[in-house]
């Protein structure tokens, strides 16, 4: 069982499929051609670059190459997690990075060292893709969670202040929006878990099967990954929402609504 190598020509044929999108955009006047071209170019350049970087790191498997790469991946995820939503506050980026970093590395450590038990501890072939998948989902949870939290607090500001004026503690006043925010952040992962294998075949599992591994092994890996992803995105979402809460509510049980600022478009 050998893997079919793809030549660049074959990739080019697949890339032509983007023409379908372009034609639709022109036909329906969606005005998306430039964005499509840009997105396609990014897909090609980013993935080719990652291919080279990974190829290089895999052949130079030292912790001092693997660890910095993992840190860069984490920081990029952290920055991306903060870049959503109409409203923001000073320190949102730091909150996003902190919650994504702590949750993803904790869960990845459990997955790599306790479940999969890789040797050496930084084995890039496992560590990098698994951390990457965890980061991607934690980032979704964090960005949805923070966005929902700031939106709810803006929309429900009157109620939050009413609760505080009645004598609610800051947590009692904030818990409704915080709950909604955590729920919003965790729903994509929960949806993914309910349809996995039935509606969607996860990329990693597909890849392993294509690479010749038995579907039963691939499925076991996928189950492990799903739970790692679920745990990390839950922790990251809760962490981000709690950090947001601490920034926007002072210990004097005040809602610091003036810290919520409209993001410059």
């Amino acid at each position, binding site marked *: 069982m050998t893997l079919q190598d793809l030549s660049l020509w074959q990739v080019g044929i697949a890339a032509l499929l983007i023409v379908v999108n372009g034609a639709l955009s022109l036909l329906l006047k969606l005005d998306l051609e430039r964005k499509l071209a840009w997105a396609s170019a990014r897909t090609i350049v980013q993935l080719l670059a990652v291919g080279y970087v990974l190829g290089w790191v895999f052949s130079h498997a030292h912790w001092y190459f693997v660890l910095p790469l993992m840190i860069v991946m984490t920081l990029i995820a952290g920055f991306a997690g903060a870049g959503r939503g109409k409203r923001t506050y000073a320190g949102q980026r730091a909150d996003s990075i902190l919650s994504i970093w702590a949750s993803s590395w904790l869960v990845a450590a459990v997955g790599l060292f306790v479940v999969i038990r890789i040797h050496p501890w930084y084995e890039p072939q496992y560590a990098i893709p698994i951390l990457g998948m965890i980061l991607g989902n934690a980032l979704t949870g964090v960005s949805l969670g923070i966005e929902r939290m700031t939106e709810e607090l803006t929309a429900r500001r*009157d*109620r939050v202040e009413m*609760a505080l*004026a009645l*004598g609610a503690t800051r947590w009692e006043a904030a818990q409704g929006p915080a709950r909604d925010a955590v729920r919003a952040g965790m729903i994509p992962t929960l949806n993914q878990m309910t349809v996995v294998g039935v509606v969607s075949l996860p990329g990693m599992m597909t890849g392993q099967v294509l690479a010749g591994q038995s579907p039963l092994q691939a499925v076991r890996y996928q189950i492990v990954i799903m739970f790692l992803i679920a745990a990390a995105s839950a922790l990251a979402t809760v962490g981000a929402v709690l950090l947001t809460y601490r920034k926007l509510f002072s*210990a004097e049980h005040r809602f610091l609504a003036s810290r919520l600022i409209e993001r410059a478009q």
Partner: protein
Amino acid sequence: MMTATPLVQADGIVRRDAGHGTTLLQPTDFALASGDRVAITGPSGSGKSVLLRALALLDPLSAGQVLWRGKTVSRAAIPRYRRAVAYIRQRPALLDGSVEDNLRYPFSLSVYRDARFDRAYAEALATRAGRGTGFLARQASELSGGEAQIVALIRVLQLVPDVLLLDEPTASLDPESTVACEALINAWFDDAATPRAWVWVSHDAPQAARVGKRQLTMRAGVLSERADGLPDAHHDSAPGAPSARGAQVNAHDSAPDAPGVQGDVQDRAPTGIKVSKEATR
């Protein structure tokens, strides 16, 4: 009754807008003793709400402090302070659900652990406000603005606070609802075994005359005794005041207003704090 310690006392409190650096409330001393009924009038944007919110400890102070019965309020005691000193906003904020759900809400808070919802009492308050027995079952979303404010008032009054900070509670209400709200608040004041107190911000001069035994005005962040009295705020920051005043007086405030106050205050003989005669309800 021997003690002269006020219920709520503000010592040189200042509020500055963190973003723009404008001063919303100039250094202000203010004392509210039990039995006091204070009315504050003044143009919109002059800082009346800022003062009330500061007294309720809802906004961070730039300087000064607020004392409760002569003592500073620790962080942990702030919910208890707000239970005793209830702030009522102009626009009532109701939760989804029925009127009764709204009235029950405070009892879910830890600060009211020792209290229980008393349906009969809530209904009695509703009746006093001219609302029938079915009122508690109404949906909050179906209430008129006046009814919503009555719910917000009953929600607070059933908790029997010691002090009310009323931020134009009837500003957007029809005359009938205004009468009902005033009746509720007056009854709360009269029912007390120990004297209570309120600070009532109003746009409406006749209402201010009705509800205030002591009349104060707020202009450009400066609180003063109205017309025939001394300025209440003795931190006379005359050099700083004009610039701050220029920065934040609302566009629709007529220009002669601000100097007029200053002139008024300075021209008066120091007759001390005056209690206006028409302050009976």
